[in-house]
């Protein structure tokens, strides 16, 4: 385990260390509230071909499928992913991402003689788990290696897993229908009972 990394991440949750993130459109002089801007799941980007767009959607839905609550596609995660690939990944990371997409399709053809998008949920999960198993010595899986700093050397499966999870739990559907959304509590109770099936809050403190 990377102890230093864990410390940083643990502290980030409590606001002890930088909770960094971004706004390309928010310049210092810009005074329009973020709240009136577009949702991260509504952004239009042109990073993918039609086939890639379909494949990415199916991967995202495989990672976080619709159950009795919305899945990744319901939540608009594919649009988020395309925007992140277009605007957020570095050139090197983007190359890893597209190569990974191609290799997943090759793996699907080799294993099932058909495209990943035509597989069952179970078959898709098996293939993603195979990629994950192959990647398991990556730093990305180190205990506590989460929260803020993206791992530039992360393999494709880690890239898409991380971005899918962030997009999903940050999305309006994820926040309201999967997590519990209570942005203006108006009170603090530090001893609320927690049922075994209850979700986390959708927002965090930033101190």
């Amino acid at each position, binding site marked *: 385990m990377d102890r230093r990394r864990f*410390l940083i991440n*643990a*502290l980030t949750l*409590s*606001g*002890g260390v*930088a*909770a960094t*993130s*971004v706004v*390309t459109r*928010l310049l*210092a*002089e*810009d005074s*329009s*509230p*973020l*709240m009136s*801007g577009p949702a*991260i799941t509504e952004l239009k980007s042109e990073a993918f071909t039609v086939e890639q767009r379909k494949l990415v959607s199916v991967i995202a839905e*495989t990672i*976080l499928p619709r*159950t009795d609550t919305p899945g990744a596609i319901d939540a608009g995660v594919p649009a988020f992913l395309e925007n992140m690939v277009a*605007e*957020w990944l*570095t050139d090197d990371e983007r190359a890893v991402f597209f190569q990974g997409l191609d290799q997943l399709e090759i793996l699907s053809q080799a294993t099932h003689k058909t495209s990943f998008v035509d597989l069952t949920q179970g078959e898709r*999960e098996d293939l993603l788990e195979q990629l994950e198993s192959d990647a398991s010595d990556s730093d990305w899986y180190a205990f*506590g290696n*989460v929260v*803020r*700093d*993206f791992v530039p050397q992360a393999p494709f499966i*880690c890239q898409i897993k*991380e971005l899918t*999870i962030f997009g999903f*739990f940050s*999305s*309006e559907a994820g926040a309201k229908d999967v997590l519990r959304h*209570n942005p*203006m*509590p*108006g*009170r*603090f*109770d*530090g*001893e*609320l*009972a*927690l049922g075994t099936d*209850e*979700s*986390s*809050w*959708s*927002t965090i*403190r*930033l*101190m």
Partner: protein
Amino acid sequence: MIADQNKKYDAIVVGSGITGGWAAKELTEKGLKVLVLERGRDIQHGLDYVGEHTPPWKVPFGDKADRSSDQSEYPVQSKCYAFDATTKHFFNNDHKNPYQYPEDKPFSWIRADGVGGRSLIWGRQSYRFSAQDFEANAEDGHGADWPIRYDDLKDWYSYVELFAGISGQAEGLDELPDSEFQKPMPMYALEKTIKARLKENMPELTMTMGRTAILTEHLNGRAACHYCGPCPRGCSTGSYFSSQSSTLPAARATGNMTLRPNSVVERLEYDPKSNRVSGVRVIDAETREVITFQARVVFLCASTLGSTQILLNSQSAYFPDGLGNSSGTLGHYLMDHIKIQHVGIFADRLDHYYEGFRPTGTYIPRYKNLPGAKGESYLRGFGIQADAVRPDWRFQFNQKGFGAGLKDSLRKPSPYWVWNLGIFGETLPDHRNKVTLHESKVDRFGIPQLHIDMAYGDNEHRMARDIEQSAVDIFRAAGAVYMMTNTELSVPGHTIHEMGTARMGKDPNTSVLNGWNQSHDVPNLFVTDGACMASSSCVNPSLTYMALTARACDYAVKQIKAGVI
């Protein structure tokens, strides 16, 4: 109000952050016509809090760091805990606001030019210095003796606390005197468990609710906290103390304040005949027009390093090394707090959660090197900001697996609590830690850049070792199932408690300011921000700056009315 160059003001206040806002309030309420000069842009209460209450799905890039912009525009500021997409507009662009430090001694200078300054993004922790803190320099010989004692400031603490609004719990401790409190915020179930265990296993410790400039009761038209969580985005209900929510409206209400943003103070002009500051030379950040304003008295409240930079740049034939620097100590004795973070994992109270996002933690006051206690291998002491967190999906997204099982696991709180200890240690005033004007590099206004040269010394490193051992002791006593502790000192400046460089003192030969925050050399010059500090205590210093500022304003106005200045 439009600032009028030809008008003579009674007072000029440089800076509009925590101390500038207080100076503006106190001086205007005492009837002075005050010009407040702010080098950054105007930031309107509420209106310009453009990140406030942003829902997660509107935070760009899903709250992932904008690595490209952080690296090119905000390499220093982006390391601040309060910096993110929803707050970055309050921070300085590092690229446009350069400063220098020796290659092997990085210094993290967190800055928020703009009306309100760092009062918009501060941590809001508010603690009084103790009697021992004001006696420490005299006691162990490091630094110059403070010209004041706790009793000189006691009533001024009360005065500023009642206006600022401090929530917290009275404990009756000499080492952490109580403030005038609003009711404390409640503890988490885990914190109550830990508190009980510490009481049993380490009775020398006190664990109390964080003393915080956030309202738990309505005050002067400001609303009690609504527990939305991320304070540094700005608070339009005025629930935390900022210049915007508190002091500037009070100053404005008197009709005596003129606030001029985009006004970069280049230097103070000095008249040797009268021995007074005779003008404040300003560069308009938008038009680059150079204007000189005049007043009977000048308060520098431009932040610790900002105020000292102005004084250093105000050289004249009479003060070749910087205005008010006959002692030669201007720029020296820079301090910050060392801050060392430790993480404990707890398996207790997992069936308890919370509602509302409590914007403070708990506090364990200094318990080492107190009067009568056994001496440690180092001088001074440390205090602990302890914070409980129930991790969520952000803390477990790299778990293995896909599909419905992963989704269900990620949506629930993690099966453990984290209890972080942020341990803040007092640093000794040291002549070698200093700021100077860079000999050749200037900023975009042609003003020499600040060169900051600071490193922690032996005492801080010795204290760091005991800090780690103390963290281990506390985690054991508290019942942690796993802990990660360390001795790594924070980068100087990173704690954002920079203090000193124009210190107060009794002796004009060894200090810049007297016991009223007044220049020993130039009677109509006051410095009331962190630059004035003669020692650093281990507690967060802003509350002390507030009290010193209000006290200095009271004194200055009496001197003006008596015709002395």
